[in-house]
């Protein structure tokens, strides 16, 4: 037994010998665990925050694009598409759904992509002010729909995308 106690001491703070009913020590372990969980939670928050910062940085960088930026003659995203994309990013952030990627779309506009394992989703905001959304997985047929520029339509789309991504 003394040998075990000695070994446990070597592995602190991962392993600790806790006597039964030793409240002071179990409380210490509990507090340690709680701190670690809070740390993980904070890091998930910052990861999400970083993805929104990156998406907004990429959105701003599309201002420098000119017609033909894709080398195949695509229109550059215009201010209307950028304003709508900004609004959608705000809604996504409020709903804690960070995008994986944001880029100019060769269709003329902005594309916001989401990836969760094998599941993917897209929101495309076009220079015409139209918005389309899609969810798909592996090689299965995508589900695509047109999105009206209203708060409720956007909220429904975010819910749908979240459900499909985590399916």
């Amino acid at each position, binding site marked *: 037994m003394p040998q075990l106690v000695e070994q446990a001491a070597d592995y602190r703070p991962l392993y600790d010998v806790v006597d039964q009913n030793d409240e002071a020590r179990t409380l210490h372990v509990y507090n340690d665990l709680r701190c670690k969980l809070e740390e993980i939670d904070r890091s998930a928050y910052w990861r999400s925050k970083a993805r929104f910062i990156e998406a907004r940085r990429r959105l701003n960088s599309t201002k*420098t*694009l000119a017609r033909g*930026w*894709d*080398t*195949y*003659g*695509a229109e550059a995203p215009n201010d209307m598409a950028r304003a709508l994309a900004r609004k959608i990013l705000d809604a996504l952030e409020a709903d804690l759904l960070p995008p*994986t*990627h944001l*880029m*100019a*779309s*060769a*269709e003329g506009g902005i*594309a916001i*992509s989401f*990836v969760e394992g094998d599941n*993917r989703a*897209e929101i*495309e905001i*076009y220079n015409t002010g*139209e918005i*389309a959304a*899609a969810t*798909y997985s*592996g*090689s299965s*047929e*995508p589900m*695509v*729909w*047109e999105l009206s520029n209203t708060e409720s339509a956007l909220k429904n789309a975010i819910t749908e995308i979240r459900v499909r991504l985590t399916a």
Partner: protein
Amino acid sequence: MYRRHRQVLPDFDGGETLYLRYGREDFVQGQLAPAAIRFPRTSVNRGILSEPEDALFAEDGKYNGLGVVEFKVSDIPPTIVQEQGPTYAFFMQHVPHTDNYAHSEIWSDHAIRTGNYREPSKTVKLEFRIQICQRITKERIRIEAVRNRVA
């Protein structure tokens, strides 16, 4: 690469390879992003008339550093059916340029063919682009991009 008065070759085999340029940030988690493909008349190079590097040929070198992916003619969805609205058919057209004989385009028309190019709706185009990109994974890279499309 130059056309030099050669004829249009209208027939495409399903197994024929097509080449498309891409930029370093066009792949999202191992798959080409649908936003990287433009649909009105998507430009590609025919594999039977060119090599992957020909898709990067420009006299002024403006495509240097971009990459090339390949996909097959059979990867193009033959039709996309809409619940409301016409069904669209997708097919290849050989459209040679003076400096690029292999240049071809993916066209669309109503399923009951009119013989002309018919522009589909945004949702049909997005579905079409997603279906192509589902097949363009990193294994389809023939030349790795080392820069973005905007230098």
